[in-house]
């Protein structure tokens, strides 16, 4: 158990070099170092600037539609017969997921740097859509890298991005999923570093990305903390969020780090089951630290150091690494990480839709499934706060395919 002092230190992470304990840092090729240093300076200056803050808050309120509601899922809670489940409704944000909180913030940074082009990697396509959206609004050229496999399973989002004026590049290298899209986005950035702002979609990558993505996403936890106090008079007993790279989870968790009584549970993609090896759960399967995409973090690699192919029904969680702050929070014992299999997530997708009329993204369905497991083991006056990171419209195709329906 971390002490009060440990938690105070944890709250202040990362250090000046972007380290969260032994994790994080900046492991990139030399060509990108100058750009990252410049980004860090720009960010540190603007994040403290009241005018920047005001602009960010304004956009979140009037463009994204914040604050997002905190909704008491009464019927679901009653049926489970235990803890009360509250849903933080990031699915109601403009573009349908938490991803837009971050792209609004990074777009403001991009605007300040004056670069005419933005690029992004995307898995489920939500980050790609959120990036294409802010690019359209600011009149920036936009290129989104997406694995061929994900282009297939998230076809709707691909067309959405194209309607928004973005170029979507199909990535055919490696496993053709999120990690390969990220490789390609980094190759693009090395080549076009002078005119391109790289908008990373999760709390991973080289410093300062994990920090700034967390800061932009922390609006989730700040709102949720206030809303929970206002609605119930107390803090939640547990926070539950799905973890791909970890941006929605860290956004929810971070404002609660020093609230030692609030459990934090990150839910990774268990795929076909941890025991099958076909999953995307580096933390809950006990992976050792490694280095990929610019940071040191728990990583799925084989004993020769090659990155292992992952599997998840949800494209947004299908990633072999995890943001470094989560590796750190697990290491110091502040947050717990667990995995939910494809089947359980699909069941939760259907169940929340039927009981509450809310269709969650398959990513978010992992968090819902975990909450459904936990609730019956807890008392009726306890609270589980689930981050409903996105809506499920984009996944209807995938679920229909499983049901044998072709449109």
């Amino acid at each position, binding site marked *: 158990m971390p002490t009060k002092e440990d938690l105070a230190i944890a709250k202040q992470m990362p250090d000046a*070099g972007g380290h969260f304990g032994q994790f994080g*840092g*900046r*492991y*990139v*090729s*030399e*060509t*990108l*170092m*100058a*750009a990252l240093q410049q980004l860090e300076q720009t960010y540190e200056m603007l994040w403290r600037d009241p005018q920047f803050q005001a602009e960010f808050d304004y956009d979140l309120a009037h463009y994204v539609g914040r604050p997002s509601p905190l909704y008491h899922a009464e019927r679901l809670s009653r049926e489970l017969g235990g803890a009360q489940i509250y849903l933080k409704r990031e699915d109601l944000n403009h573009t349908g997921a938490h991803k837009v909180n971050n792209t609004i913030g990074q777009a403001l940074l991009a605007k300040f740097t004056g670069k005419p082009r933005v690029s992004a990697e995307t898995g489920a396509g939500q980050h790609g859509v959120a990036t294409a959206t802010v690019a359209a609004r600011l009149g920036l050229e936009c290129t989104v890298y997406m694995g061929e496999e994900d282009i297939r399973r998230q076809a709707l989002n691909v067309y959405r991005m194209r309607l928004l004026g973005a170029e979507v590049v199909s990535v055919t*290298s*490696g496993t053709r999923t999120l*990690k*390969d899209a990220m*490789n390609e986005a*980094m*190759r693009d950035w*090395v*080549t*076009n*570093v*002078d005119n391109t702002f790289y908008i990373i979609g999760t709390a991973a990558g080289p410093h300062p990305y994990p920090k700034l993505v967390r800061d932009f996403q922390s609006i989730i936890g700040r709102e949720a903390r206030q809303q929970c106090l206002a609605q119930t008079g107390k803090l939640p007993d547990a926070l539950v969020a799905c973890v791909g790279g970890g941006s929605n989870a860290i956004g929810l968790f971070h404002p609660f780090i020093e609230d030692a009584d609030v459990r934090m549970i990150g839910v990774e993609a268990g795929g076909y089951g941890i025991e099958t090896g076909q999953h995307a759960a580096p933390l809950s399967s006990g992976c*050792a*630290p*490694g*280095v*990929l*995409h*610019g940071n*040191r973090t728990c*990583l799925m*690699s084989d*004993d*020769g*150091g*090659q*990155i292992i192919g992952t599997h998840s029904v949800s494209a947004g969680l299908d990633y072999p690494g995890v943001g470094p702050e989560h590796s750190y929070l697990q290491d110091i014992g502040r947050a717990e990480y667990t995995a939910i299999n494809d089947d359980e997530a699909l069941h939760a997708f259907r169940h929340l839709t039927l009981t509450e009329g809310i269709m969650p993204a398959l990513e978010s369905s992992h968090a819902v499934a975990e909450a459904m497991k936990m609730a019956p083991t807890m008392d009726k006056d306890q609270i589980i706060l689930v981050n409903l990171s996105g809506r499920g419209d984009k996944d209807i195709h995938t679920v229909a395919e499983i049901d044998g329906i072709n449109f």
Partner: protein
Amino acid sequence: MSRITECFNNLKSQGRKALIPFVTAGDPDPKVTVPLMHALVESGADILELGIPFSDPMADGPVIQLACERALLHGTRLTDVLDMVAEFRQTDQTTPVVLMGYLNPIEVMGYSVFAEKAKAAGLDGVLTVDLPPEEAGVFNQLMKAADIDVIYLLSPTTEVERVKLICAAGSGYVYYVSVKGVTGSASLNVPEVAEKLQMIRQHTDMPVGVGFGIRDDASARAVSEIADGVIVGSVLVNKIAELAGDQDKIPDAVAAITASMRQAMDK
């Protein structure tokens, strides 16, 4: 004195420049690599850069990405690469060998195990693309203790302050990446590179090798006029890819390219 430093000193006294070919270890088959290394030396290569295959080569273009894939198809691991170096050393005790790759395979092996094995294999230098000096404190100490040079990249975006920092951290030589981009991408602009090298030389006495964008005799010669070493990779790897189905021909065919570059450089 390290084998690398000795090599550059000898070349300097002869008024010649180093020809430094890069090939990915295990591409297209582990059996090819050691004979290919010897053939490269015979053709006039001075230092060999051997790529450690990696599943996610983020700084590489399609040519070397595919080389990694071919090598990994045969399961070429870092330990195998070190075995190849050791085998090469049995019959060549003078040509420096540098491993070039990404950090994760070394991280997973463990820095000290790697240092020990690399020293035993007779390795001379290591260049990890994604390990800048800021993160390399422990790694550098262990390599130094094992008498292995740590070679760093400098790029067109590297400002003076970082040039100083990087040159202070590295040894053997520095590797100037001549273009913004991945391996095998654009062709280089020689006057621009010359200008940057002038700045770099103000801050280090180490030899400077130039790589990325050298694809023929003319570019090899042009670079040899301004740099201490000419690093050539993608054109050789392309030839290997072409002959992947006819592996016996690879050493001679690749060495023919470097032999011709050697001639052009020595003219």
